[in-house]
């Protein structure tokens, strides 16, 4: 029996469940680097020219594909490997994710040395993206099993780490590049190697710490409800049967629409703040604005997921969609009255709910489909993130450009987009309202042999 097997990760009596969130954070803080990848774009566009881009240097548009490929493979790998992650256990998954993530960095370093962009697409984009997908879902169901009394808070802690990973990676990457750079060389490759090694240590330490609860374990003083509540089942749904339920697709749209509304704004926050308030918001202040909304993206993940334990998942999403709609409609007015403070307030709340959408959804799935395959079902749901990663920026960028091309002043170029975002959130509200309890016919029966091994183990 391997050290990585699920059987070897079953916690002995006396193991504190509060060791599991740091283990999960080891993983999520590392893969959260993805949000900070843009710090490499400008240096990588000057690898030959050093002080400015040479004709043979990579273009920013070509470099932009690295992040996009990684996010696509995040969604795909989470969907494809979800069942393997669930049945193989969190340690094997975290070990594999850490390895993919690091090898992705190392291969990208080779790509930078050899100046072969396809190696970076393959390294960071494909391999790193697979590491992202497996790493993202690996601790989620384990946390839900350790914290049946507060599943939202538990997954919120881990997924908050994904938002927080960029805060560490961004200044660390800038510092490392400065250390490795010389007047004739930009130290991107060395930084990739250093980051790869650091992340391997972190993720493997997390894999060593993580444990799954022993069969039948419950927290002291916790008694599971004797019967299913209206929207919290005590039954389990087999991973692929979940796809046959309307609930899965309704929640897929709930996540997709919530993320679409936030992700486009997140990518354009700096430009938007400067264009809506010309002369009032400088580039330096805009960078501060980006930092501030990133902070609320992280904090929202913990706050809203924890709140969902108190008010319920469905009500939490109702809050996102109702408050979000009002705020998006308000944003154009903040521009017309010139109130930067109100603009910032609107967006920090919107972005906190964007983050909250990610962190609340694992507990929503657990309520709907039970704990047994929640990690795998969550993995399949993350394809909604990949889709939103395309819709969101396209909506914001293209509609703005269309507006400007038709003579709309730059300061008002985002108004229509904001109203469209508000409309998307209204659709999300309706989808969320349609979510009802999963029909009994989808529940796994006592004699169901599918995934039997995992059933016996936990």
């Amino acid at each position, binding site marked *: 029996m391997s050290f990585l097997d699920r059987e070897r990760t079953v*916690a*002995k*009596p*006396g*193991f*504190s*469940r*509060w*060791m599991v969130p*740091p*283990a999960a*954070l*080891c993983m999520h*803080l590392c893969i959260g680097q993805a949000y900070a990848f843009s710090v490499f774009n400008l240096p990588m566009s000057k690898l030959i020219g050093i002080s400015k881009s040479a004709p043979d240097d990579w273009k920013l548009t070509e470099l932009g594909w690295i992040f996009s490929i990684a996010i696509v493979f995040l969604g795909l790998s989470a969907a494809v490997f979800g069942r393997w992650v669930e049945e193989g256990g969190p340690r094997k998954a975290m070990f594999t994710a850490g390895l993919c993530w690091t090898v992705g960095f190392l291969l990208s370093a080779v790509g930078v040395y050899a100046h072969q962009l396809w190696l970076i697409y393959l390294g960071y984009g494909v391999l790193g993206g697979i590491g992202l997908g497996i790493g993202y879902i690996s601790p989620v169901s384990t946390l839900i099993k350790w914290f049946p009394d507060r599943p939202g808070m538990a997954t919120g802690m881990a997924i908050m*780490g994904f938002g*927080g990973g*960029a*805060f*560490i*990676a*961004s*200044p660390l990457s800038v510092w490392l590049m400065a250390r490795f750079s010389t007047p004739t060389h930009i130290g991107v490759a060395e930084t990739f190697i250093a980051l790869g090694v650091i992340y391997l240590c972190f993720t493997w*330490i997390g894999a060593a*710490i993580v444990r799954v609860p022993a069969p039948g374990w419950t*927290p*002291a*003083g916790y008694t599971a409800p004797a019967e299913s509540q209206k929207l919290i089942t005590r039954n389990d749904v087999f991973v692929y049967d979940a796809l046959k339920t309307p609930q899965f697709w309704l929640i897929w749209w709930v996540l997709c629409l919530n993320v679409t509304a936030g992700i486009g704004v997140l990518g354009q926050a700096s430009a938007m703040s400067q264009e809506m308030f010309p002369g009032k*918001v400088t580039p*330096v*202040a*805009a*960078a*501060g*604005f980006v*930092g*501030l909304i*990133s*902070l609320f993206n*992280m904090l929202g993940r913990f706050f809203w997921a924890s709140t969902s334990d108190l008010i319920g998942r469905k009500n939490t999403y109702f809050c996102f969609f109702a408050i979000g709609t009002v705020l998006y409609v308000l944003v154009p007015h903040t521009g017309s009255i010139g109130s930067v403070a109100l603009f*910032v307030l609107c967006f920090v709340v919107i972005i906190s709910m964007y983050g909250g959408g990610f962190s609340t959804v694992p507990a929503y799935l657990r309520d709907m489909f039970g704990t047994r395959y929640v990690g795998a079902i969550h993995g399949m749901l993350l394809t909604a993130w990949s889709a939103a990663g395309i819709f969101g920026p396209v909506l914001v960028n293209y509609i703005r450009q269309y507006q400007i091309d038709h003579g709309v002043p730059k300061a008002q170029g985002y108004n229509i987009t904001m109203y469209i975002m508000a409309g998307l959130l209204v659709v999300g509200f309706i989808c969320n309202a349609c979510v009802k309890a999963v029909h009994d016919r989808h529940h796994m029966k006592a004699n169901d042999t599918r995934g039997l091994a995992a059933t016996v183990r936990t």
Partner: protein
Amino acid sequence: MSNDNQNGTSTLQLVVAWGFVGIPLIWGVLQTLSNAMKLFQ
């Protein structure tokens, strides 16, 4: 979590584990906050 911590996991282990992830995270958040303050200057 009242009786989770009886035998296997010591308080020191918990402090080390949380410090291992918490210290880098707090450092990153402080860096970001100091940048964000430029918005209000």
